């Protein structure tokens, strides 16, 4: 027996198909992050080259370098503005959650409540908020409160409608089981309807997060013009009047960063609350 033969490791038993699957999963995982990053880098580069080579004046389209400069130089203006818009959005979302869930529970507990009020919730939803905003500005003294109401109006409907459907979605046999065991109304809500509604509510929350930001931006555009606005959207609008395009783009980018952040946080909350049991949060094996 030769030395080579003795020390050769046993041929690893690798299922070719399995290996291919593992490799493709790994590639997918990497590509999920690298591809969008690559697209970002290339677009910024193209933007930079276009602005430089075509000698586009900065009051028409500022280059990425100019925008980055604005973010840094105007940070003292942008950061407080971001806080205002952020507070507006989060407060509106919080109110939307409280209002939407409370109303959904009321709807499922009393069909009279649902019959009486649901149409008005729809009307509130389908009326463009931009048309309501000027009225709010007139009737509500505080600009912040008026803006908050605007953002709340757009954010609360997806929570209301999703939670209402969710509360009614409990399995029929489970409902029968609760009847057989003599469950009270409260127990039914707490132990059956609420957990059944959770995935629906979280779906609504994801949409509502984005809408709250849109509502806040719209409100700042309309209401902030009265000279009270200090949020990112008002800053953006003001910059456009002054042809300060560097600041305008900086504000725009920060708004979309906020949108992405809100979406990411909602997704994480949703994943953490459902990962143990709900199909949407499960990784399929194989």
């Amino acid at each position, binding site marked *: 027996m030769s030395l080579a033969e003795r020390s050769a490791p046993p041929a690893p038993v690798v299922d070719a198909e399995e290996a291919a699957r593992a490799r493709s999963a790994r590639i997918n995982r990497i590509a999920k992050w690298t591809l969008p990053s690559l697209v970002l880098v290339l677009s910024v580069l193209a933007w930079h080259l276009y602005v430089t080579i075509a000698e586009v004046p900065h009051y028409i389209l500022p280059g990425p370098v100019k925008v980055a400069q604005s973010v840094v130089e105007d940070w003292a203006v942008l950061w407080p503005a971001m806080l205002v818009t952020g507070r507006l959005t989060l407060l509106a979302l919080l109110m939307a959650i409280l209002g939407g869930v409370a109303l959904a529970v009321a709807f499922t507990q009393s069909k009279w409540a649902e019959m009486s009020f649901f149409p008005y919730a729809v009307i509130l939803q389908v009326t463009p908020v931009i048309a309501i905003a000027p009225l709010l500005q007139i009737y509500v003294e505080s600009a912040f409160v008026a803006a908050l109401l605007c953002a709340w109006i757009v954010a609360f409907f997806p929570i209301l409608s999703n939670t209402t459907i969710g509360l009614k979605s409990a399995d029929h046999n489970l409902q*029968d089981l609760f009847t057989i065991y003599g469950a009270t109304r409260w127990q039914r809500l707490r132990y059956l309807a609420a957990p059944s509604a959770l995935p629906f509510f979280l779906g609504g929350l994801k949409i509502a997060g984005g809408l709250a930001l849109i509502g806040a931006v719209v409100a700042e555009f309309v209401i902030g013009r009265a000279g009270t606005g200090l949020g990112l959207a008002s800053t953006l609008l003001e910059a456009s009047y002054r042809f300060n395009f560097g600041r305008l783009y900086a504000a725009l980018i920060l708004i979309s960063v906020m949108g992405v952040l809100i979406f990411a946080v909602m997704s994480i909350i949703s994943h953490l609350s459902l990962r143990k049991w709900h199909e949407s949060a499960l990784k399929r094996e194989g």
Partner: protein
Amino acid sequence: MTRQTAPLGSRAPVLAMSHIEKTFNGDVVALKDMNLSVNDGDFISLLGPSGCGKSTALRLIAGLLQPTSGTIRWAGGQAAGDLGIVFQEPTLMPWATVAQNVWLPFRLRGQSYNSVRDDILEALRLVGLEKFQNAYPRELSGGMKMRVSIARAMVTKPRLILMDEPFAALDEITRFKLNNDLLKLKEKIGCTVIFVTHSVFESVFLSDRIVVMAARPGRVIRELHVDTPYPRAEAFRTSAEYTAHTREASAALHQAMELAA
């Protein structure tokens, strides 16, 4: 410890259905003049083609439906926890662990988990799932989910357990295994069961009383007795006695189907 079941005819009454009639929407007669007395320790199968009112009968007993006429009386009145039910689907709460699912009947009576922990673990042990108490339903196979459902139905030591085609959706191997285990369980806790099935084999293997029903209108046409004593094990399935009983039950089922045709 096993509980001895008294012979048929000398068992204490648990529940009596008399002259039960159930009509849906004014014209669909789901049950017509159904009479059934359930006695302590009975294993009753309701055997019949689909649409003959088996599920309706169970839902009436469970109080989920009210009869159009007739009465259902529990001997000595019905108390909380007297009834357990197993549906065709496991009907577990996906957001709750196995142990929390079994806790449900107690929880709805306001009893804390710790105060009934021993009962819950005992029920899970009886169905062979004590190691899975912290698992979520999605982690279990179809047969295991059904076992959890059975554990939940019997955890309150009910006087009567209703089962509506509980194994119909399972593969045959799992089904046989669960049939055997169900009998062992009955042996241990001496429960009274009404079991809905459209399988002749299942009804003969499990029960000592087979109530054969026909459709349109849903009604009882015969009651057969399978007097082979428990415990019945796998060997019973291949015995001459078993074959004779299945032949008899098949004939009754055919008769039921002809009556409806």
